């Protein structure tokens, strides 16, 4: 019993948009094909959903490791949005990266429950490590991983760890078989 929808999957009640003419060299057509292909595939996979931009951005980042600048005009064209709207959404959310992360990623919780058990030392240590290996390790802060009784918490390569201290973090970041 769904209502008539716009091509972007939203309901027809939203304000009307100007039709864009067929410009000979639209920004989307100039996008890197290695980016445009996966982006169009992500759009196709989610087009039937309501308000599908976030699921599409997640899918693009899953596929490419980031949402490159060239994805913006393609998304705008496919979803009948302005490039400014896509850019606005993309840059609002912390999760979306413009460039792929390094081989190793660490997200250290800096919220209150982890602060109470020494998260700042863990975060400081992680930042020092990243500074000494800028091409290998990406360190981000995060506010709460939902592990507040077992802090300090950190996510290392996508995996959550509790009761982390600098020594433990160093072990977690040492590739298997590399232990001294």
């Amino acid at each position, binding site marked *: 019993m769904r209502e008539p929808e716009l091509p972007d999957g*939203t309901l027809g009640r939203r304000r009307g948009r100007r039709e864009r003419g067929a410009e000979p060299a639209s920004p989307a057509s100039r996008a890197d094909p290695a980016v445009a292909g996966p982006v169009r595939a992500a759009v196709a996979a989610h087009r039937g959903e309501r308000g*599908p931009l*976030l699921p599409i951005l997640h899918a693009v980042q899953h596929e490419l490791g980031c949402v490159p600048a060239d994805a913006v005009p393609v998304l705008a064209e496919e979803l009948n949005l302005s490039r400014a709207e896509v850019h606005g959404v993309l840059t609002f959310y912390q999760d979306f990266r413009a460039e792929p992360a390094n081989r190793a990623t660490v997200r250290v919780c800096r919220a209150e429950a982890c602060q*109470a058990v020494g998260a700042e030392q863990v975060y400081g240590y992680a930042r020092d490590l990243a500074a000494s290996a800028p091409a290998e390790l990406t360190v981000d802060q*995060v506010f709460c991983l939902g592990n507040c009784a*077992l802090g300090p918490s950190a996510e290392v390569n*996508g995996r*959550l760890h509790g009761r982390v201290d600098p020594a433990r973090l160093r072990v977690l970041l040492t590739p298997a078989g590399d232990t001294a």
Partner: protein
Amino acid sequence: MTATVYVPRDSAARSVGADEVVAALAAAGPDVRVVRNGSRGLLWLEPLVEVATAAGRVGYGPVAPGDVAGLLAAGLLTGADHPLRLGVVDDLPWLARQHRVTFARMGVTDPLCPEDYVANGGLRGLRRAREMAPAAVVAEVTESGLRGRGGAGFPAGIKWQTVLACLDELKFVCCNADEGDSGTFADRMVMEGDPFMLIEGMAIAAHAVGAGEGYLYIRSEYPDAVATMRAAIGIARDRGWLGDFALHVRVGAGAYICGEETAMLESLEGKRGMVRAKPPIPALEGLFGRPTVVNNVLTLATVPAILADGAAAYRGLGVERSRGTQVFQLGGNIARGGIVETAFGVTLGELVAGYGGGTRTGRPVRAVQVGGPLGAYLPTSMFDLPMDYEAFAAAGAMLGHGGVVVFDDSVDMAAQARFAFEFCAEESCGKCTPCRVGSVRGVEVIDRIRAGEQRDDNLMLLGDLCDLMTDGSLCAMGGLTPMPVRSALTHFTDDFEARTP
């Protein structure tokens, strides 16, 4: 004979080695059947391994992977004695003293086993609801006294009634699972440990208000919850539990503000998570402008129990206008952290000192922050405060989502107050000036106070700024950021003296 051993799949248990414990148990061979249950919420004992015996499920914990061989040799599979043996888990005083309603099945069942769910009381609420007229279901929820568990404490039944009364053909039920408050993890545990309960609650809400579509908005920081909910929804759909209710999972993208209900709706529509001005309230003009129920995970997860056992049973618990139970979450620097579900009215001191056992570091408790990053910092002299919405409001604090974060005497409360502004500056959606600019100015003013620069003038300025943010912000983010700041100033004034280098 095959022994059944339970090792939680909860991400908190996994964060301290539950998967490695399971791998070590594989060495015991085919005599062991491992069930990955939810966590019981006794998080300081994780990984908590349980073995089924004739006397009940016997627990061992915290079990390190290296302990497993010794445990097996000592007779783990028969519940034999060992230094890590805790006894029958259901009889542990920490658990036995609680009154678990929402968390009754938590840790008992295999979260993704539908037979387990039904055998332990699941679906009774939905079946009863579907035999009732929608208005009768709404009346039952209203009568139970259930208030929104997300923080604001608005009566759930009133909200549902508003949506039910709308004549629109298209209505939505949205579950807010953007549990971003530090110190709260009950929503995550529901989604990972008893996902069918949340699905059942959403299906009841959909029936009650006449909604055909539902969205579950889960923060991206909870990948295990996302995976578990997706799997559970698939199972529920295959079993026909959902009827024609179309339930979708949506994943956030790292924005705290999307826990604010209107920002969440914007995000669900594929936009920046910018707060909307209210009115119109979401119950009238919510997702895509349609009437929408927006409830927190715990609110919706509590609905099946209310429908199953009746409003009176739920209403019989609690105090004053805070009826039923609350799922308190003990975290931070605490010796025994985890989930305490009990009737409203338990004191803060009973939670922190009684259940929690004081700090993990063994130093004296100095401050407790209740209700997340926007909640007040309270000193131990306020430990008599009963945990109920009105008592907390009267004390200049808030219950919020029931998170309790403990700090020992090494905490610098001026730094915590500064962090409250810093966090607000980081996470503000930017729509209103008091929040967007006030948070940045707040950091600067506190820095000047701490540097001893025109201290009295700057303290007055800080008071003005807090008034302005409280009165002038569009939503609770800017409006409540002054709460931790003011409470720190009031109760821990000394920390705001100029620092001597």
